[in-house]
């Protein structure tokens, strides 16, 4: 029975990673930008929600607000910071986004101080739920359900909608896409903002597992990058599978072999990347 709990815990953790990282895989995949500032957008979302909750705004509204703000910040960043980077190459992008992360961290520390910002969960999320064989935190069940819903919604959006078709076309071949009338720039802007918005949402929803503090953006960056890399850059399905897989590996390793857990995690990442260098589910477009 405890094995089932470990699975649930692992999946919940994986879902949080998915919600935050899916935006990164999309932006890295479609815009080919090495975006090391992705954690910063998740953080911004979390802090905005913290402020809203502190002012008495109900949880869902605060989460929504945080998502929007993160998305808007992303849109602004795209126009001002990322767009000049497209032609400058990967190193410049890595450096710029790294510097941007530092600036965000410093700014948030100046405003909020260096302690953890706790996001008080609403009543319906903070209790325990009877799932048959034991009481289990409602919050984790919510995260799992939300992650599944998000994955489904993304599938509908990217694989089944006109927007998704246009996006895929623009990623596969921007020139031809423009030639048939797709406004590639606006599409990318929208998608990038969407990715940042999702990051912000993930920052809010994941705050129980990944506590909010100014160093958040750097502390968890490796995790997000690895989920994207293992899953396949640009493929949201891949990052879903990778996030769940890594969440499960990490959690079960900690449960069964606590002292070796860290080795197992990075070893698994190494093995997965060597087995499938392009990711578990490589993006359709060949590099």
């Amino acid at each position, binding site marked *: 029975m405890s094995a089932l709990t470990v699975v649930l815990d692992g999946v919940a953790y994986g879902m949080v990673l998915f919600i935050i990282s899916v935006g990164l895989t999309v932006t890295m995949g479609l815009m080919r930008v090495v975006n090391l500032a992705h954690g910063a957008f998740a953080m911004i979302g979390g802090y905005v929600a913290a402020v809203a909750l502190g002012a008495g705004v109900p949880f869902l509204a605060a989460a929504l607000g945080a998502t929007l703000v993160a998305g808007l910040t992303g849109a602004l960043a795209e126009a001002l910071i990322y767009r000049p980077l497209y032609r400058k190459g990967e190193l410049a992008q890595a450096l710029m986004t790294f510097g941007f992360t530092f600036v965000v961290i410093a700014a948030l520390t100046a405003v909020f101080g260096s302690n953890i910002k706790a996001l008080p969960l609403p009543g319906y999320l903070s209790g325990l739920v009877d799932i048959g064989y034991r009481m289990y935190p409602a919050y984790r069940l919510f995260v799992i359900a939300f992650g599944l819903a998000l994955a489904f919604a993304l599938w509908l959006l990217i694989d089944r909608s006109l927007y998704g078709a246009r996006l895929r076309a623009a990623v596969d071949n921007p020139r031809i896409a423009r030639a048939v009338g797709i406004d590639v720039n606006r599409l990318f802007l929208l998608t990038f903002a969407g990715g940042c918005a999702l990051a912000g949402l993930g920052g809010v929803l994941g705050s129980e597992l990944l506590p909010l503090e100014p160093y958040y953006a750097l502390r968890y960056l490796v995790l997000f990058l690895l989920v994207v*890399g293992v899953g396949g850059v640009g493929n949201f399905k891949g990052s879903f599978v990778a996030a769940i897989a890594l969440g499960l590996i990490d959690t079960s390793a900690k449960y069964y072999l606590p002292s070796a857990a860290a080795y197992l995690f990075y070893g698994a990442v190494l093995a997965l990347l060597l087995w499938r260098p392009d990711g578990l589910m490589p993006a359709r477009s060949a590099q």
Partner: protein
Amino acid sequence: MTLRYGGWGHLLPWAAALAFYFFGSDLLSLGTNALIMVLFALSLDLVLGYAGIITMGHAAFFGFGAYVAGVFSIHFSNDPIAGLLLATAAAAVLGLITGALILHTRGVTLMMLTIAIGALVLEVANHLRAITGGDDGLQGIRIAPLLGLFRFDLWGHTAYLYTLAVLFVWFLLAWRIMRSPFGRSLDGIRQNVRRMRAIGTPVWWRLVAVYSLGAAMAGTAGALSAQTTRSVGLTALELLTSGTVLMVLILGGTRRLYGSFAGAVVYVVVQDLAAQADPFRWMFVIGALLMAVVLFLENGLMGLVDLGAARIRALSGSRREQR
């Protein structure tokens, strides 16, 4: 490595480094740190600037070299040069093994793999607490006088000159290697792998070789750090350290002979000043600096030097052949 400013230009950085020894007595340990960072960034330039291997895990070799040198001095022998050589060799071996493992991949995948390996090395160091000291860091490092004559004093005189000498040796080595056919082929590999393969270049071997070379150099830098500061900590192996040396290199300018010099000195100085001026806000300064450099300086700080030199040349009216 392109050398744009002829013979006299060469002397300038080395003369400045020597001058600093005489005029900067209070700041020698800062200077030593800057020199170590130069060596570290130079090692990355070989791997990333020349061969085009994007790595976010280069700190693994720096840290490994540091720990090997530190442990060697505690358990085997205090002699600094022996420790230095051993650490360099050990880091080269680590570079060889990990490079062979991952260098068949490219681009983002390769970067992810370097991150994973870096994280793994950090975990191993943390786990082997009995040897490395874990989070406490490696303590009790004592370094015997250099060549039996020059004691490593509190003020850092010996340490500075020692580091400068080692840097000079590696610099010459790196320069020679990069100007050789081997070095040129790396340049070619970075620019167009397929073409290089088409003309029969053993690409993978070359990449592994330069990766090991860069690892060796980084290992030396780590060993110097361990010996001159007499301490090693896990931060030497962190992602942030890999990120920092990447920043320093790009700041200075890749594939430029003295790019790493410029970047390292500026970074160390700015960080020191910013941390002194406001210990609570220095990250803001560094972050803003990075963004500004990327936005406005195409070729890093050496680009600024180019501009300056072009101005001077235009003013003086002389026409010199440019590479």
